[in-house]
């Protein structure tokens, strides 16, 4: 799994209300519609700026707050390919993997807004093409790689009918 795109950078503690506000998420199951409001309270223009394949890059505790799975879905439907952060809140982490949105934990201090990256999950590296730097990433546990490879937890269940990590 290899992804290319540009960086949209955010700070620490980006909570799920910022990712998709409660005032939208209760209204609809239409994720394309929800995606138009992704990160709106932090950057009202984000949805228009983000190109398919781009990366959200953040500091610590990305996705803290609620259990709303609409958060990773909205990120995914906005076209973001991978979220890269120093650390993630556990609910967002779990939900993202279940939705099939890959996450990468690494030191993001050396990644700047607009940088062009190549993220190689199989090799476990980020190539910062703008800066000519290679950043190592923390590998995902096997269970999560299996769910991502199946395309998400729904697809995993379609395939096996239950959990199958054997």
């Amino acid at each position, binding site marked *: 799994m290899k992804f290319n795109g540009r960086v949209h950078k955010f700070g620490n503690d980006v909570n799920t209300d910022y990712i998709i506000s409660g005032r939208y998420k209760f209204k609809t*199951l239409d994720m394309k519609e929800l995606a138009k409001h992704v990160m709106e309270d932090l950057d009202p223009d984000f949805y228009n700026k983000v190109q398919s394949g781009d990366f959200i890059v953040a500091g610590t*505790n990305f996705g803290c707050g609620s259990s709303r799975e609409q958060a*990773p879905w909205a990120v995914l439907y906005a076209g973001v390919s991978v979220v890269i952060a120093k650390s993630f809140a556990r609910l967002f982490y779990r939900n993202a993997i279940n939705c099939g949105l890959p996450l990468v934990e690494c030191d993001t201090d050396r990644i700047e807004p607009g940088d062009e990256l190549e993220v190689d999950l199989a090799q476990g590296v980020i190539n910062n093409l703008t800066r000519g730097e290679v950043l190592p990433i923390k590998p995902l546990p096997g269970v999560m790689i299996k769910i991502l490879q199946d395309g998400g937890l729904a697809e995993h*269940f379609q395939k096996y009918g239950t*959990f199958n990590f054997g």
Partner: protein
Amino acid sequence: MGKTIAEKILGAHCQQAVSANDIVVADLDYVMGQDGTSPLAIQAFREMKGQKVFDPRRVAMIIDHSAPSPLEGVSALHALMRDFAREQGFNFYDIGEGVCHQLMPEKGNVVCGDLVVGADSHTCSYGALNAFSTGVGSTDLAAAMISGKLWFKVPESFKFVLNGQLPAGVYAKDLILYLIGQVTADGATYMAAEYVGEAVRALSVEGRLTMSNMAIEMGAKAGLMEADEKTLAWVQQHSQREPRPVTSDPDAVYARVEEYEVSNLPPQVAKPHTVDNVAPITEVAGTPIQQAVIGTCTNGRLEDLRIAAQILQDRKINPQVRFIVAPASRRIMLEAIKEGVLQTLIEAGAAVVTPGCGPCVGTHNGVPSDGENVIPTANRNFKGRMGNNKAFIYLASPATVAASALAGEIADPREFIR
């Protein structure tokens, strides 16, 4: 090597000895969803080719976040939930029954030793009843409804030793806000918080639920407590199921242990826009407020309403303040009516809304205007949380909220307690 409560409960539910950082697939005692997360879970359930829930007696859905529906789109999602509940025959709590984290324990769905997941981040509340309970997303909820199982990473544990006794006018809410301020919003990420000590034992079960409810606000996966005679009496009063109390071994291994002396703790307030932005009351007293709220899964219980009523008895709130009260459940509302607590609050100027989430999550029941300050007893003060990203939210105890409603500004409840 000894085990923590988290390791023991997760181990008991996958029939093997487990240690922190193991990944296991475990059997669930109960599965819960609310109206913000269930519609997506129902969609996933169909997509995953689910036919029947694993056991309708161990599944509940609750309409509390937007209840009654304020919008056509929400009404359609509620209808989807009602149809699914009818088809599957599980426990369904419709509008006005209460907020999910009050109903789950109150209806007897959770007992000591249980493993429970809920598609709501504050599912960690039931740790106060010595159950391992944690929030999950909608696809997880669907997988859990189908299989009765879920995968877990066994968390490391973070022990909070709370010594001393809380002074008058200082409550469980102040204590948990203080702890969150100390360890910060990600201080316990992925860990199970375990609260022990004299100050915890002195709390009522209601107060303990407040502390466990907010474990997620420091990133924790669970907010656990041991069961004592108060826990067992409460559980036996509400549930037919047999409690299975679980204690940590004396030689259990903790990732972190912090000890606090709470006897001199002043009331605490979390300032905008993060829950860990905590200050003692003296630092924020005098801040004008336009709206005060008592309710939510954190502080909408009878004890909370009583504390507010005691301060507001024979007094009127400041005319510049809108004062909203949302009892956490129908049962609590009825008890508050019988005791005269609700009459006291209404006479003081409260607008009482349907038992449920109230205005906490910005869907209805009191969205603030631009530039306004709100002081709720809720658990989150994120920008935009109550439906307006230009409002400012200060989290506090029911006593501090009641005192502030009287004063028209953030006020120290110790000056108002009689």
